[in-house]
């Protein structure tokens, strides 16, 4: 039987320090051992904090291997409150007859799987955080959102949007807002807000492509195609052709058409198209090289919360150079992708 050492449990350093001066040699040795382990974790935390600056960062934890999601689905019962509703399905529990709950559970699982398989990222915070999905938000509510701790999904108004859990790209989009909150905390206005939105579309489309077994040529590059009602057919946004997704889409495709003061979902068309150009130039699956370059830029400590398109673009190039080399085709493709949308590097 393995011996349990109480000193390896959580004890404050001052207590361990006092025990390390004990006359009892066994107690002294255990205390010194525990202090060494404690120091290692403190160094890890400090190193993590220095890399991520003032961002929202979860503490370094241990005793979790990762690779499996922890999901809880709630029924908001058409209320507008953002208090978590009634639990209808926890991790590992069987499917219910509520299709929105099933879609949310499956979609969160697909998104977790994308982040784990591609980046070995363990959930929203990288630390295995529980994924809270709240369905049936509001009355005929045509929206889905991340509120900083949970994802909320409306059933739609039937005209603009239908059941928002039906789009795995939409679920990936919302979960990615959480990832961005932990990694870069991009301010949700102006160009940093448009980058925040674009990053959610970039990873949302990859979740959809992976779920459907699509590569960059077979993907439709449409966001929200499975949740739009008759008024917004065929999709909310097109990463391939920003501004052409539906009869009312106002997204620009290049900096020439940038909309000063425009909604963050409007100007996100520019970095969305840059990602599309990069992924299709490189070919294969979007998560082979293009996704990792964008992910590395998002996690780069030099990415500030108020980053501009140009600052983000430069970080994608720096990371492509670092990952794939100075003379790589990947780095050349990154240059070409930003040139295509007229963002100077």
């Amino acid at each position, binding site marked *: 039987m393995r011996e349990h050492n109480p000193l390896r449990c959580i004890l404050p350093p001052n207590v361990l320090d006092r025990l390390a001066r004990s006359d009892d040699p066994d107690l002294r040795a255990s205390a010194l051992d525990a202090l060494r382990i404690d120091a290692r974790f403190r160094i890890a935390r400090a190193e993590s904090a220095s890399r991520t600056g003032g961002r929202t960062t979860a503490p370094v934890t241990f005793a979790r291997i990762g690779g499996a999601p922890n999901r809880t689905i709630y029924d908001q019962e058409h209320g*507008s409150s953002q208090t978590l509703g009634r639990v209808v399905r926890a991790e590992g529990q069987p499917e219910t007859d509520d299709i929105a709950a099933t879609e949310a559970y499956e979609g969160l699982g697909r998104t977790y799987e994308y982040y784990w398989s591609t980046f070995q990222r363990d959930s929203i915070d990288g630390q295995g955080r529980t994924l809270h999905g709240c369905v049936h938000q509001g009355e*005929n509510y*045509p*929206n*889905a*959102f*991340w*509120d*900083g701790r949970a994802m909320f999904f409306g059933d739609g*108004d039937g005209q*603009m*949007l239908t059941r*928002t859990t039906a789009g795995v790209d*939409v679920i990936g*989009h*919302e979960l990615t*807002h959480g990832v961005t909150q932990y990694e870069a905390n991009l*301010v*949700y*206005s102006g160009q940093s*807000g448009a980058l*925040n*939105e674009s990053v*959610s579309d970039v990873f949302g489309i990859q979740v959809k492509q992976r779920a459907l077994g699509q590569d960059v040529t077979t993907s439709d590059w449409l966001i*929200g195609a499975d949740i739009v009602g008759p*008024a*917004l057919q065929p999709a*909310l*946004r097109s990463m391939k*052709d920003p*501004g*052409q997704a*539906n*009869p*009312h*889409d*106002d*997204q*620009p495709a290049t900096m020439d*058409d940038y909309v000063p003061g425009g*909604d*963050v*979902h*409007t100007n*996100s*068309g520019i970095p969305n198209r840059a990602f599309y150009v990069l992924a299709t130039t490189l070919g294969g699956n979007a998560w082979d090289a293009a996704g990792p370059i964008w992910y590395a830029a998002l996690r780069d400590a030099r990415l500030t919360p108020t980053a501009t398109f140009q600052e983000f673009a430069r970080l994608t190039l720096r990371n492509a150079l670092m990952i794939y080399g100075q003379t790589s085709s990947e780095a050349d493709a990154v240059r070409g992708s930003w040139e295509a949308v007229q963002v100077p590097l």
Partner: protein
Amino acid sequence: MRIRVRRVGGIAGNIALAAELDTAQLPASDATRLEGALEALPWGAPAGVPPHPDAFRYEVDLPDEPGRGTAVLEESDVGGDMDLLRTHLQSDGVIESRRRPG
């Protein structure tokens, strides 16, 4: 009193929904409540950063009183007496076409 309201933001934030409402068309008690609530709005105040990604926002104008400017409301502000605006927008709103020539 004529009121123009636009819903912006949300996951479909590149699409705006707009409606106009005249309190003269409402039952007298509703008109009084709504006009009273409008008086308390932050007219002309600059909009802050939305409370979270993909949040809806409501932009309210009074076409006959352009000097007031616009009042920008978060979803949590559009309850109580202001809920009439939200329900009117939901039933009679028209999608704004801002698409540029493709």
